[in-house]
């Protein structure tokens, strides 16, 4: 049970952590000043949410570790973030679609988690949900603006949708440890979340003129520590300093 809680806290913490890294990469590279601020602000919210989850995970762990250890000192296989958040900021359309898919997911997941039987899960969810509402409004506005914009923006957004859709299956896969938590009323049934997610995404797709891509198989395996090829490069970057200077402090 404690191990199951730990696994899920790690999954949530890592997902926010990796997404925040991608968002913060846009600092001073945003398409214009306001968007630069928006992306880094959303990144900051995710750093905060990640810290809350990883702090709790460290408490649940039997080892003497803290949130910083979990963020900076683990090996690739030990991270359990969903694969979607690893996708690079290839084009602004990819940034928007990645964020939009995650915002809908987080909005639905955190809404359910506010009723979790685990009081810490519920507290983190209550706090995060308020922030996620702002994120979702922001990303869904961009979906419509780009999708319903010029033929160029429409095409680029559709390309991003087509590529990133492949990674969305991974969001709803439930390993045994999460099925146990769902049985105990600690987390919602992720498979049940999928239909709500599809409904909300389609609502925005219709407004934005996006087509839902067809895939025979979708990516999965993040719960098992499987990552995209991009993960290793990211770890190299943000683990470099803690590995070089073991006792580095702010």
């Amino acid at each position, binding site marked *: 049970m404690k191990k199951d809680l730990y696994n899920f806290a790690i999954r949530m913490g890592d997902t926010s952590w990796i997404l925040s890294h991608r968002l913060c990469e846009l600092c001073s590279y945003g398409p214009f000043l*306001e968007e630069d601020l928006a992306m880094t602000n959303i990144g900051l919210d995710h750093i905060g949410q990640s810290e809350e989850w990883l702090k709790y995970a460290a408490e649940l762990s039997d080892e003497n570790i803290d949130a910083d250890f979990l963020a900076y000192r683990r090996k690739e296989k030990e991270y359990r973030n969903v694969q979607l958040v690893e996708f690079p900021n290839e084009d602004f359309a990819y940034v928007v679609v990645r964020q939009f898919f995650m915002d809908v997911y987080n909005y639905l997941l955190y809404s359910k988690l506010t009723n979790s039987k685990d009081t810490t899960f519920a507290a*983190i969810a209550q706090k995060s949900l308020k922030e996620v509402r702002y994120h979702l409004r922001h990303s869904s506005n961009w979906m419509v603006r780009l999708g319903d914009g010029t033929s160029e923006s429409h095409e680029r957004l559709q390309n991003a949708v087509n590529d990133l859709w492949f990674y969305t299956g991974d969001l709803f896969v439930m390993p045994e440890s999460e099925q146990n938590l769902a049985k105990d009323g600690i987390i919602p049934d992720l498979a049940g979340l999928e239909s709500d997610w599809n409904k909300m995404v389609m609502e925005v797709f219709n407004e934005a003129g996006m087509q839902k891509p067809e895939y025979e198989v979708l990516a999965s395996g993040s719960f098992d520590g499987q990552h995209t090829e991009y993960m290793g490069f990211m770890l190299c970057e943000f683990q470099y300093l803690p590995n070089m200077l073991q006792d580095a402090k702010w």
Partner: protein
Amino acid sequence: MPNGNPENTKFKETRVWEILAEIPDPEIPVLTILDLGIVRKVEFHDEKPIITITPTYSGCPAMQRFEKDIVEAMEQNGFEGTEVPMIYEPAWTTDWITEKGRRKLKEYGIAPPEETTANKKALFFENDIVTVTCPRCNSKNTKLESQFGSTACKALYKCNDCLEPFEYFKCL
């Protein structure tokens, strides 16, 4: 001083609230941490002061500064070993910013939050229906420029009458 004397404890708690009322927000220095409504509880466990706070935004970098400032202010006033635990539940809301805090924000040039979070139904395309009043000329003819501003808690607005850009402390 004898331990556990209720009158003595009461006295000390009152003193702590006075100390807290002097600590400014590092990013919006006209506000104190009490104006902001982040202090949830002041207690004494034996002789040790415990001051429970709640974060505004999850990743707000001011939170670590709050903790440090509180511990320092307490030390300067002769309270040693203060602990500043953080709780997430109930989550902070802009409704906890005091009336005095709202007034001070406006005088400082930041539009205070307009509506209570309870009747907020903004999601997806329903943009906030709130009308933000320009803190400089009091015009209601203002325009949202960006939902995200210089800090996590603020949005960027522009006044269509006096043409000044200004910041709005958004609802949470």
